[in-house]
Every structure is written in structure tokens, then in C-alpha cells.
């Protein structure tokens, strides 16, 4: 993917650190979904397994998007030194904030309904 090291334009490895932050967030989402799905079986029945599957699929989507974004950030930084060429930086951020809100609402339902 890269023919020159990041250090040429990015001494702090900002792009890579940001990609890693997305990856550990995706990992947290996947593990959280699996544990939540297991815990919720006595309360919500088999439907809770759907939550687990959905969470893992969502985490994979986050991983794929962050991978593509890393590439775009890298190319934009190399081509012009800023992030103006990176498409829709806010969209994955808004989506993930929405997922976080949904997870918290599901947890609220779990605690109140059990």
C-alpha cells in the first residue's frame, strides 16, 4: 500500500495511530456485542443472539471502513499535506456515535426489563 514510510510527512504517525484507535474501538464493539448477546439470552431469548451477530458484523464494517479511510488519509496527506481530499470524515463518526447510543439504550432496556 505504501512505497515510502509515513515519517516523510507524518512524524507522529498520526494516520497509523488513528487507524489503530479505530481498530481497538471495533474490537471493543465486537466483544461487547458477543458478551451482551450471551448475557441477554435469559431475558430476550434467541433474539439476543441476533444482537450479537449484528454487533460483530458492525465491527467488521468499522474495520473495513477504517482500513479504507487510512488509505485515503495516507494518500491525501502525501498528495497535498492536508485531509481535504478525504471523503466524508464525519459520516463514520456520526454512525459510530449512533451505535454507541443504541448500545446504551439496549443496556437500559436490559437492566429495566430483566
Amino acid at each position, binding site marked *: 500500500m505504501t512505497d515510502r514510510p509515513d515519517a516523510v510527512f507524518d512524524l507522529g504517525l498520526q494516520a497509523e495511530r488513528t487507524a489503530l*484507535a479505530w481498530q481497538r474501538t471495533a474490537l471493543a464493539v465486537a466483544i461487547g456485542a458477543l458478551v451482551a448477546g450471551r*448475557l441477554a439470552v435469559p431475558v430476550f431469548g434467541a433474539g439476543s443472539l441476533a444482537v450479537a451477530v449484528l454487533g460483530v458484523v458492525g465491527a467488521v464494517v468499522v474495520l473495513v471502513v477504517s482500513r479504507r479511510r487510512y488509505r485515503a488519509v495516507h494518500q*491525501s496527506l502525501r498528495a*497535498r499535506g492536508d*485531509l481535504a481530499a478525504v471523503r466524508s470524515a464525519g459520516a463514520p463518526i456520526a454512525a459510530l*456515535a449512533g451505535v*454507541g447510543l443504541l448500545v*446504551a439504550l439496549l443496556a437500559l432496556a436490559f*437492566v429495566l426489563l430483566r
Partner: protein
Amino acid sequence: MDEGAEDVPDEAPTDRRFPRRVYRAGREPDPRFSLANERTFLAWIRTSLALVAAGVALEALDLPIADGLRLAGALVFIVLGLLAPAQAWLGWAATERALRQGRPLPSPRLGLLLAVGTTVAGLLVLVGLVLR
């Protein structure tokens, strides 16, 4: 990285990136700051997940904590977990806007509430453990 900054046109008025409230303000900031802002957003999301996990664990595991206090602690944790993604999104947008306009960065709006709430939840659990 700074050499090209002068000849980058101010493209804010026609910038199509989402959200436009952010990207149509000011001019393109140092990319390192934007990426750091993105990581701060992600850290808030993980904080939200941790708060929710704490609340769910209190109720899902069979812990020796007085019932009422345990439920109260769990609810405080989960309500904080609900607020954290809001802080994550609003904080990211406000910070990115401030970066683009060269203004001072906003403080985390819900920071105090989260600190107080986490303390309260911890105290509820502690008292619940003692009373049981």
C-alpha cells in the same frame, strides 16, 4: 507538511463533506490536529462502552450488593454511557470547527457530569457492598 499550505485554496463555502456546519467553517487545519480529534472521539466511544458494560455487569452477574443500591448504580452507569456518545459527537464537531476557525478549543461539556456521575455510581456500589 506546511509548504503546500499557502496555495491550498479556501474551499470552505463549497466543501461537501459531512457535517457541513463543520466543514464550511474556516479553512483546512493541520491534519495532525484533525486526526487527534478523531482519536479523542473514539476514546469517548470506548468510554461509553465501558460505562455500559459496568452497568450491565452489575445487574447481570450475581453480585453480593444490596438490590436497590445495585440497580441505582447500574442505572447511573448506563445513563452516563448514554451521555458519552453525545459528548463524543458534539465534542468532535465543536473541536473540529474551532480548529478550522483557529479559535480556542471547547472544553468537554459533559466532563464534570461524567466525573460526578462515575463517583456517585462507585459510592452506590460501595455502600451496597457494605450493607449486604
